[in-house]
């Protein structure tokens, strides 16, 4: 790449079911002002803005980044809007990083958001007027197929949910904070889409995530630790086609291989210090462990059951509490990327993994067909 790219600062909102204290612009500003402060920058330092969110009918505004120009200090600047389904927060960060690594800009603000409480996202996720059963109904057959293929015990999913919900208790910004949960309580919660129970599913949240990206010159001038972007990749495949394996999509495997190659990672299970990945339903943890080449086929669940993915485990996964705890859809991908950067900058607070220096951020969307990933490190190479 022409230029190195680094995360100079990050910020997010306090995520809630309803952020009834702010307008949409006010909510974005909460994340953006935290990110700018973290980067020791002001609006005038920003060269360009890249925004992302899920479908516009969620809030009933077409291309809302137009209205948000003022709130994002965007007058006289370039403003790009990305939309790649659930992976959008990750894809948005990738597009923003390319504005730096291509050499076009020095400092870029990137922000993703959703204010789900404004409208009815279940309607939208069900394909709008074409009808359907929401993301849970769409993904449940794949989780079921995974369970059957792998022979994973039923409580794998409960274990994931328990871990992510515990991690969320350490994250001041997380939405769902459920203390004193047990595997039993998760099992007892209503079965929504067999095999997925309510407590194994993500909530709907209002929130935003923001990062300030800079080139090497800007990163070297920054007084705080930065997260160097060591690789970015996106991959898409069709949602339905003959021969497709939706349980272990090729696009995800290819995307991971590409991003590891760029980051110089030959053994991701050994080289990565932690992973923040997009798990909206608990069974996706073992599925993505395999898809991301972190476990052999049909053995991802063993890492979960052995405690490898716990915050103090050998390969912590979803330190923030993950999508299971916080899910402002458009921002969910960027929150994964942001968390990865916080870990390698050493600023993750109570959910910090000791000594983390290389982390993967992951997002997916559509019919498990869109993938965006980045690897960030505390060192540039």
């Amino acid at each position, binding site marked *: 790449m022409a230029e190195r790219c680094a995360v100079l600062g990050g910020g997010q909102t306090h995520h809630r079911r309803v952020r009834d204290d702010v307008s949409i612009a006010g909510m974005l500003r909460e994340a953006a002002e935290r990110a700018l402060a973290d980067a020791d920058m002001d609006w005038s330092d920003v060269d360009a803005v890249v925004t992302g969110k899920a479908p516009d009918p969620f809030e009933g505004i077409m291309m809302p980044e137009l209205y948000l120009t003022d709130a994002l200090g965007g007058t006289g600047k370039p403003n790009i809007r990305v939309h790649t389904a659930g992976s959008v927060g990750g894809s948005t960060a990738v597009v923003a990083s390319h504005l730096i690594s291509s050499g076009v800009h020095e400092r870029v603000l990137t922000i993703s958001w959703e204010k789900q409480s404004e409208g009815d996202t279940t*309607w939208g996720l069900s394909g709008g007027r*074409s009808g359907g059963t*929401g993301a849970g109904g769409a993904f*449940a*057959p794949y989780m079921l197929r995974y369970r059957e293929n792998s022979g994973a015990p039923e409580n794998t999913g409960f274990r994931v949910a328990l871990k992510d919900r515990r991690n969320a208790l350490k994250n001041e910004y997380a939405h769902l904070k459920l203390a004193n949960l047990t595997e039993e309580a998760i099992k007892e919660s209503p079965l929504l*889409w067999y095999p997925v129970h309510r407590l194994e599913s993500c909530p709907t949240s209002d929130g935003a995530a923001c990062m300030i990206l800079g080139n090497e010159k800007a990163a070297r001038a920054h007084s705080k630790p930065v997260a160097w972007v060591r690789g970015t990749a996106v991959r898409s495949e069709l949602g339905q086609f003959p021969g497709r*394996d939706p349980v272990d999509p090729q696009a995800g495997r290819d995307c991971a291989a590409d991003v590891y190659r760029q980051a110089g990672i030959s053994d991701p299970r050994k080289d990565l210090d932690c992973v923040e990945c997009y798990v909206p339903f608990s069974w996706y943890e073992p599925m993505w462990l395999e898809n991301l080449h972190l476990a052999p086929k049909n053995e991802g669940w063993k890492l979960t059951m052995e405690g490898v993915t716990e915050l103090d485990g050998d390969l912590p996964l979803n330190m923030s509490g993950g999508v299971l705890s916080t899910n402002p859809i458009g921002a969910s991908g960027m929150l994964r990327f942001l968390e990865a950067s916080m870990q390698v900058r050493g600023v993750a607070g109570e959910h910090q993994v000791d000594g983390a220096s290389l982390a993967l951020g992951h997002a997916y969307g559509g019919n498990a067909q869109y993938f965006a990933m980045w690897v960030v490190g505390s060192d540039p190479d």
Partner: protein
Amino acid sequence: MAEQQAPVVMMEEIVSLEYTTLATDVGIRFMDCLIEGRIIGHKSKQSGLVYVPPKGYCLMTGSPTTADDEVEVSDHGVVTGFTIIEPIQYPGQEETERYVQAQVLLDGASSALGLCRIQDIPFEEVRAGLRVKAVWRPPEDRQQTIVDSWGGRAISSCIQHWVPSGEPDADPASIAKNMY
């Protein structure tokens, strides 16, 4: 209007837009056949794959398909994936009872149909590999509708649901890579 009322903190708004969807040529043909009780697809010359409903192109090669590529497929097939849904209530949701939703790969087709309702079988016996057949609505009840990309609405306007056909289960290997 008293000046002392509480501050306004929220507003409600109904965003209402009107749209018209026009049937496509391939959609019209698919629908006409369904009303006659037949399921058709397009068989790509390039890949040999059969798409149901026909889209007018081959997903795997990007080449157009036309009426010349039309083939008829069976109304018997195999369940390649499923879930059991406990309906969440939201605007437009008409379901209130638990039901089985499955992908069904029809005999002669290369890709499975999504959103198929399976009935006449206990929930715990539903499985991938199960052979099923269509239960057609009476001809007079079959409704013209616009065929969307997956064909779901068109199919459910002519096929009520799917039931076990009594045939032996499909070999798991034959459906392992054909969930869709």
